[in-house]
């Protein structure tokens, strides 16, 4: 249980959920703060506007009516003080439904206070400017902060104040609701995050499960989910492609070892069998010598097979260094043909060189010699006895030249031609063995040509086959 919790805490799913939720929470807070401050400043602005409008209105009335309460004289507007007071009460009751505090003074003498101030004197610091807004608290008139505006105009000083409480009631209730709702939303975002990550990551779990099942023995299986065209789908597709590549190289390695084993088994069978027969009963010295000779031949054959295998393996792993030098192609080919003519004579075959022009090229002479020798050996072995093997070499253009080896033979199927360079492939499983060759010759040729960045192909007609090698001149 503990481990499972630990695993969950460490999982991407958990981290993703937490990130979702945290991000959501931060957004929630930012949004709350923005809304709060927007509403707050807006309300204050509106309150200030309203307070200043009221104060200005009072000033305006005072000025326009030229009232001097200190030295009140009955006039045509107010016949008595009562009229004036009623007018003021009317003001307070009808126009002051929102409990605005108003105080009017000249110098240090208060000439008017709204009724809701009930003789409490509002004191403010002296100001130089004409208009000023304040926040102040006065427990005598309100528990809350009060917003006030003071306007100085000549002798008059008008103060209009209003408790913020009333205006901020809405903001406060909004904040309350927000404080209750925010954690609920946070919880919902946690759950939602968990659900979303669960859903999206469950495919990762499937991929992991299937990947665990795949070993070297079942590489043909595929991870499901390639059909989705999203990140996971692409991941699965790429993983399947990787598995396919691994399978190809493992198959190749298996084929290599199976083929190598097959190739080695024939000389080993002969060695083992001949030695067993030799030991079975006593033989004459001549017989022993014959057996030893044969064993020696088979040993050479084994060495050649191992050398070829080693060469192919090295060339495939890019471990071979080319020692390119400039060489006259004609002289080079004549030398090779001379060496190969012994084998050709045994098969009653002639080696012919056809070259139109004399030219030089740059290549590794040891390796190309081996390649051409293998091609000629191959042509002698599989060619029809008594027909010549034709070797030719020509410049193709300023960059390339070719070396071709052509021999007459029975028709070979197109399928065989396509596989002819495959390692260990033999057109007729037994032909190479009967002629004492090794099924690796053409593979070695291909490796050498590839090392020189050249190409090799086999072309056939009904009665001959031609190996065409193209190599760079430089």
């Amino acid at each position, binding site marked *: 249980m503990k481990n499972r919790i630990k695993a969950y805490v460490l999982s991407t799913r958990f981290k993703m959920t937490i990130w979702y939720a945290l991000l959501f929470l931060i957004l929630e807070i930012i949004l709350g703060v923005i809304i709060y401050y927007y509403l707050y400043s807006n309300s204050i602005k509106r309150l200030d506007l309203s307070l200043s409008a009221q104060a200005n209105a009072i000033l305006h009335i005072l000025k326009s009516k030229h009232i001097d309460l200190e030295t009140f004289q009955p006039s045509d507007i107010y016949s008595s003080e009562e009229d004036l007071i009623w007018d003021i009460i009317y003001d307070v009751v009808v126009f002051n439904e929102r409990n605005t505090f108003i105080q009017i003074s000249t110098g240090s003498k208060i000439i008017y206070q709204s009724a809701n101030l009930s003789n409490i004197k509002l004191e403010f610091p002296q100001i130089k400017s004409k208009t000023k807004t304040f926040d102040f608290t006065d427990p005598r008139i309100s528990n809350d902060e009060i917003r006030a505006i003071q306007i100085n105009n000549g002798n008059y000083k008008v103060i209009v104040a209003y408790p913020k409480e009333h205006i901020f009631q809405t903001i406060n209730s909004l904040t309350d609701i927000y404080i209750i709702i925010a954690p609920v939303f946070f919880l919902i975002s946690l759950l939602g995050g968990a659900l979303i990550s669960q859903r999206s990551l469950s495919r990762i779990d499937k991929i992991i499960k299937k990947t665990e099942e795949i070993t070297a023995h079942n590489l043909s299986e595929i991870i499901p989910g390639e059909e989705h065209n999203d990140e996971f789908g692409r991941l699965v597709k790429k993983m399947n492609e990787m598995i396919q590549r691994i399978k190809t190289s493992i198959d190749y390695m298996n084929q290599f070892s199976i083929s190598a*084993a*097959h190739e080695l*088994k*024939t000389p*080993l*069978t*002969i*060695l*083992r*069998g*001949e030695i*067993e*027969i030799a030991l*079975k*009963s006593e033989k004459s010295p001549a017989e022993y010598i014959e057996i030893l000779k*044969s064993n020696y031949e*088979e040993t050479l054959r084994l060495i050649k097979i191992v050398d070829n295998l080693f060469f192919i393996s090295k060339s495939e792993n890019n471990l071979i260094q080319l020692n390119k030098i400039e060489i006259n192609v004609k002289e080079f080919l004549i030398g090779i043909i001379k060496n190969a003519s012994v084998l050709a004579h045994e098969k009653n075959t002639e080696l012919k060189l056809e070259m139109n022009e004399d030219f030089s090229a740059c290549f590794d002479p040891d390796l190309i010699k081996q390649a051409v020798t293998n091609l000629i050996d191959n042509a002698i072995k599989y060619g029809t006895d008594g027909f010549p093997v034709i070797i030719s070499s020509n410049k193709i253009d300023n960059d390339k030249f070719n070396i071709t080896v052509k021999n007459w033979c029975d028709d070979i199927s197109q399928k065989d031609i396509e596989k002819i360079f495959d390692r260990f492939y033999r057109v*007729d*499983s*037994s*032909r190479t*063995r*009967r002629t004492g060759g090794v099924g690796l010759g053409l593979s070695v040729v291909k490796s050498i040509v590839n090392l020189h960045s050249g190409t090799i192909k086999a072309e056939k007609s009904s009665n001959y086959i031609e190996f065409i090698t193209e190599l760079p001149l430089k």
Partner: protein
Amino acid sequence: MRILVVEDEKKVASFIKKGLEEEFFIVDVAYNGKEGLDLASTEEYDLIILDIMIPFIDGVTLTKELRKRKIITPILLLTVKDSVSDKVEGLDAGADDYLTKPFAFEELTARIRALLRRRENLMSNILTAADLKLDLVTHKVYRNEKEIILTPKEFSILEYLLRNKNKIVSRTKLIEHVYDYHFDTDTNVIDVYINKLRNKIDQGFNKKLIHTIRGVGYIIKED
């Protein structure tokens, strides 16, 4: 006992032939599937050793073809192919046994003996008639517990007669099973060997084992 070896690798065919001849077998060699099919269908063999990868007709196809032609001679496949599927394919084609190269020669001869025993419902490698014993492994022959020295050809003839105990064996049949196909059919040579065998086996014993059936051939009987 006459064995056909179909093997394209000349050296392998050669040492098998040599080794089997030392074991008193008579061996014919074919170097490809066509030759093998011709020999197997025209000559009489007690066993065929067949390589799978041979030219013209491969070993498995050849096995199928022989079985189709009602040739029931035991077939032992001998090949470098060692996968289970290859073995199954070969045995299902009608072969009786499968041996992979490189093999131990002793194992090859043991398997050959086993295949020959099974064919004749023999329980052991010792053939008997009354107090005559022939050991197929050591190639030793005893009469009344006394060892009798035989030449390979004499041994082969006696072996064939004993394998067909109580059955009449014609001279032609004997020639077919104790000579390879290079032998020019001359049945008189059999009479010469039978005489030699009689001198070594029956002389000095009351109970004669080798009997002549006039105009037909020979038989080994206990009574």
